[in-house]
């Protein structure tokens, strides 16, 4: 192979594939071309050291504040159910769909369970319908509690990105807390309707904690973060969430194996 020219060496440096193997072979054999490639790479490496100013951690937020007033309202598409920005747009969040889906599933499950027991079961019981409803709720709430636990654990472990920073950015946890809040309200109301007061109470406490997180500043000082952590700890919410999560797990098992006991265990637990 003849010596590659400058353009070919630059293309080689950029990872171009044409005649790559032949060029590699040539470079292994030809010190002159190797030195030329090293000179090209030295200039490019030097350029890599050109500084780019850091616009700051809150740059994204600043950009948003600058452009937000200039953004026109967007008309929702018909297949998004004509929801408005204020009322329904956020319902496109998959987790909200999950929550809404679980609630809808409760109604469908109740209807189906009613039909099945009416026509097929030798001894139709209201407990069957109730059991199906409860399992749907248990599964959905179990997952919701898992996600809430994750946010609280992350918050408990949050710390400044580096030692020099005096504030901790908790905006990610905040956004997730906001999302979880709406789900939480739905599940709490449903738990109340189902007569599961313990679950409703824990969800009520979780709601307060999520509200607390959602309404905190995006960036907090270590002292403010500590205050949030203490409020979480004072409620013992992480512990309660774990306990209820575990209990839901057991309840799901029990609804699979011994449907008859289900109602009574819930009543006893509520009493406790």
């Amino acid at each position: 192979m003849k010596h590659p020219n400058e353009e070919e060496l630059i293309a080689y440096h950029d990872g171009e594939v044409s005649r790559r193997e032949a060029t590699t072979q040539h470079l292994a054999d030809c010190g002159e071309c190797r030195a030329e490639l090293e000179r090209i790479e030295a200039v490019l490496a030097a350029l890599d050291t050109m500084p780019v100013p850091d616009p700051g951690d809150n740059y994204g937020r600043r950009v948003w504040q600058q452009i937000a007033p200039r953004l026109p309202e967007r008309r929702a598409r018909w297949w998004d159910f004509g929801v408005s920005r204020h009322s329904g747009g956020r319902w496109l969040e998959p987790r909200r769909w999950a929550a809404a889906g679980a609630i809808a599933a409760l109604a469908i499950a109740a209807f189906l369970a009613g039909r099945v027991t009416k026509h097929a079961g030798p001894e139709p019981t209201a407990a069957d319908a109730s059991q199906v409803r409860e399992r749907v709720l248990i599964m959905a709430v179990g997952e919701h509690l898992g996600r809430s636990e994750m946010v609280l654990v992350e918050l408990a472990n949050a710390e400044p990105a580096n030692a020099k920073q005096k504030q901790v950015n908790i905006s990610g946890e905040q956004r997730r807390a906001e999302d979880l809040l709406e789900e939480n309200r739905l599940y709490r109301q449903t738990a109340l309707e189902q007569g599961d007061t313990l679950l409703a109470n824990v969800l009520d406490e979780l709601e307060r904690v999520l509200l607390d997180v959602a309404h905190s500043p995006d960036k907090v000082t270590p002292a403010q973060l500590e205050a949030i952590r203490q409020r979480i700890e004072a409620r013992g919410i992480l512990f309660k969430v774990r306990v209820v999560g575990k209990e839901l797990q057991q309840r799901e098992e029990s609804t699979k194996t011994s449907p008859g006991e289900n109602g009574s265990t819930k009543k006893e637990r509520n009493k406790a």
Partner: protein
Amino acid sequence: MKRMSPSVETPGDTDAIAVERTLAGDRDAFRVLVERHSHNVFRLAYRMTGNQHDAEEVVQETFLRAYQKLSQFAERANFGTWVYRIAANYAIDRMRQRRTEDAQRELPGRGVDEGLELDPMNIVPDAAPSPERLAQSGELAEHMRRAMNALTPAERTAFVMRHWGGSGIEEIAVALKSSTSAAKNTVFRSVQKLRQALGPFVERRGQARAMGTDL
């Protein structure tokens, strides 16, 4: 019940959700995209325009354009790459406009013939400083800045996209509104000019390092 582990969402997934919500009328969902991609777009814009003020303007305009064109964003695409291309397109227009403005304001007797500015002789330093001084004072950074400023907007765009953005030739051709062979040639020309302008300094630096005089 086996607790489901929380789903792991990649930035691409959450970008797609934010795009979908924005298209559904939730303007605030666009905020997620702006906050997530502003730094990357700023880095590109700064490298292309060479100054913070213009870079910030490019970032704002990029996201405004992205919002307006969001319905054209294909679901299969990566939002980061898509917005990067919008930024490159706008930055090249902004650089051309800036050059015209500067030429009219500061050099009334001189045209805006890019060929004149391209001449590598114009970007070779007047008096080559010693390697020690270069190493000490960061003058190399200044030479690099001048060498980058001496590229035409198209060359600078091609270089930044190729070497810092990792863009392919086809993508650069789209940004430059040129053929792929022309884009390839523009990339080559940019590196060639940067070499001519900076090679002597970089080689001296290497020499100084080899002699143990580099600080």
